[in-house]
């Protein structure tokens, strides 16, 4: 047993940290909040050159063939630097379900281009009901000849407006069990009948409302088997939750580091505020929260990677913990900064707002606590 990074992961982390420090400065993060696309094509290309988009894609499809724990290490750095753009949607919500369920032809068609940074993807899953479960998928797809026709609305779709393809979950059959009758489609984002509208969010990230009006999808673009899409979505959600946790680990650590530094430098009553126990104890609690986030996330990533029998439990535990612990960390961050923390110019607010976004994505603490309780009951 070893809770730390192996040598290769240390290298990946150190490299990513140096790279992002240079290539993803605070100024870029701020620019992208105002930018319509929400990402820098230049940075995207440079990240692709590092092989990051293909990190977990098998080598035979042009990837690096690395593993889920490696991705977690990288995404921790993404959280530290608040890297804007469709990286997680492309890798986790696009490439991963294709790796899980794609035909050989689909893998050949998509994975090498994703790995090369040529394709941007996302998954269109949630709808106005804002549910993560299978019964939240009401959008209909009906068959017409060899094509399928999609109608309906997807909401909270990350970065959809800049994608080339979306994995769309739609209902092709209705029955007693909502997990049956869901089919996944690889949909060209420029198909006629698709409209994107950007949502204005707390994190100034780019989530979309995506409307589908008689959108035709060729039969060859069904991902996996008709009616059997939910297990693929489910598995993808697990990795997406681990990705969100990893991002939160880095985000919380950085918010904490900035705050700790501030507490050492800010002088009131003739001494650094970090010399007051009221501040020290907040910071002690915060570092426990950060450490807890890190180790439960590592364990969840590892369990998923190794297909451990309790992998799903670990993922839910991780997301339940990280969602709230990271919120406590950034709340302390705001409080310890006092007034300056509330200003737009100072950096700590960037972390505060994005924490809430990742807290909500892929199930908040209440959602995952319930899943934990369900698994205890078995």
């Amino acid at each position, binding site marked *: *047993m*070893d*809770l*730390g*990074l*192996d040598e290769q*992961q240390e290298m990946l982390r150190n490299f990513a940290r140096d790279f992002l420090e240079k290539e993803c400065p605070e100024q870029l993060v701020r620019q992208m909040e105002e930018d319509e696309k929400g990402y820098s094509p230049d940075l995207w290309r440079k990240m692709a050159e590092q092989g990051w988009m293909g990190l977990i894609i098998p080598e035979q499809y042009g990837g690096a063939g690395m593993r889920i*724990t490696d991705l977690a290490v990288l995404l921790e750095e993404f959280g530290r630097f608040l890297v804007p753009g469709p990286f997680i949607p492309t890798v986790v919500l696009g490439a991963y379900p294709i790796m899980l369920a794609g035909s050989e032809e689909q893998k050949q068609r998509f994975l090498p281009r994703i790995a090369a940074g040529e394709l941007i993807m996302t998954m269109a899953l949630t709808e106005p009901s804002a549910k993560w479960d299978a019964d939240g998928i009401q959008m209909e797809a009906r068959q017409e000849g060899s094509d399928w026709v999609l109608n309906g609305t997807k909401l909270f779709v990350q970065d959809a407006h800049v994608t080339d393809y979306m994995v769309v979950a739609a209902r092709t059959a209705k029955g007693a069990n909502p997990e049956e009758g869901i089919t996944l489609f690889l949909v060209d984002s420029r198909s006629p009948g698709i409209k994107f509208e950007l949502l204005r969010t707390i994190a100034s990230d780019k989530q979309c409302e995506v409307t589908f009006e008689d959108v035709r999808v060729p039969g060859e673009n069904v991902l996996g088997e008709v009616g059997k899409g939910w297990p693929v979505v489910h598995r993808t959600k697990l990795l997406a939750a681990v990705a969100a946790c990893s991002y939160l680990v880095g985000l919380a650590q950085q918010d904490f580091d900035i705050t*700790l530094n501030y*507490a*050492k430098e800010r002088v009131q009553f003739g*001494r*650094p505020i*970090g*010399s*007051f*126990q009221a*501040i*020290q*104890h907040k*910071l*002690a*609690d915060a*570092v*426990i929260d950060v*450490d*807890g986030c890190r*180790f*439960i996330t*590592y*364990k969840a*990533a*590892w*369990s998923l990677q*190794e297909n451990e029998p309790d992998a799903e439990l*670990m993922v839910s*535990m991780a997301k*339940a*913990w990280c969602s709230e612990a990271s919120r406590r960390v950034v709340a302390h961050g705001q409080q310890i900064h006092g007034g300056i923390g509330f200003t737009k110019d100072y950096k700590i607010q960037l972390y505060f707002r994005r924490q809430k976004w990742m807290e909500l994505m892929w199930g908040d603490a*209440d959602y*995952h*606590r*319930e*899943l*934990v*309780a*369900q698994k*205890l*009951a078995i």
Partner: protein
Amino acid sequence: MDFRLSPEDEAFRQEVRSWLRENLPRDWEDQVPEGEAWEFTRHFTRKLAEKGWVVPHWPKEYGGLGLSLWRQLIFREEMSYHRAPLGYISIGADWAGPTIIVYGTEEQKREHLPRIARAEVMWCQGFSEPNAGSDLANLETRAVRDGDEYVVNGQKIWTSGAHRADWMILLARTDPEAPKHKGISYFLVDMKSPGITVRPLIDMMNNHGFNQVFFENVRVPARNLLGEENRGWYMATTTLNFERSSIGGAAASRRLLEDLVEYVRDSSLPEGRRLDDPRVRYQMGEAAVELEIGRLLSYRVVSLQERGQVPSYEASIAKLYNTEMGLRLARRGLAILGLYGQLQPKSRWARLRGRFERQYQWMTAMVVGGGTSEIQRNLIAIRGLGLPRD
């Protein structure tokens, strides 16, 4: 990154488990080692000693097994999980012994270590005083050199097992003029020495575990000074470093949570299955998550040590988190048990054998003993995070 124990370590866990099943009564409950329970504890610890399991973490040359850190962790987990009665042997095994191994003379080692390893002697720890709790270095008990002896006068408090102990590790002031950390010495004291009075200090659970110990002109041979005179504080803080991962607390909490899971799943209760109540589900989900965090924070301490690093504030984190988590778990358990939660173990109507009533009180002591939560937060902030002292 690897969260799996080696097959050999897993086999060791199985060995410990099956030994415990053979050597503990099926319905064994955690309890204060008094009366019959004391007799059984003595019997049990002698059997442990036959296996070398009183001091499995010591080097072989001193009668230990030289177990790897992970096996020590496994061992402690299983002992706590199975509520194994250890009496007060851990004070000798985890505190006195390791300090003697590091600082003791050959003679001291020969005299004390084998007897600790064989569970022949019990030790107690004379550190805290009425005016030296969190501020331990403020201790006032005096030891004055007189020829080949020291004469000790003063008072100790919270001395667990002093009424059962054969020996005590004692901190006493030998230089009242020096700054307070630099005038303290570390002694090994025979509890049968004339002038020692042990008085019970009954806790709020109505148990006798703690004592007050009074010293009136107690003569301690100078050869029972451990290490150098006036260096006791630094030796004591190393001693405080030995029992660090707090894994025992996490494992005991895990057992309690499992009890609680079984309870909330029971559909034969007159009030119905508790797990169907969303408030109960929320509490159980949260408890399970917190428990896993506690376990990982303890494992992290060992993982660091295995990598050759010396944990410092990480151990404080494990202690702080696991005791506070254990207290929260006890509160959750009581809330779920409702009116039944208040019943003591001996009550005919008690549920889960009244364990949560006991635990709720006991954990309020655990967040104080061994360094209060507030002291742990201070240590984390100052040693770990480098924040300035006031």
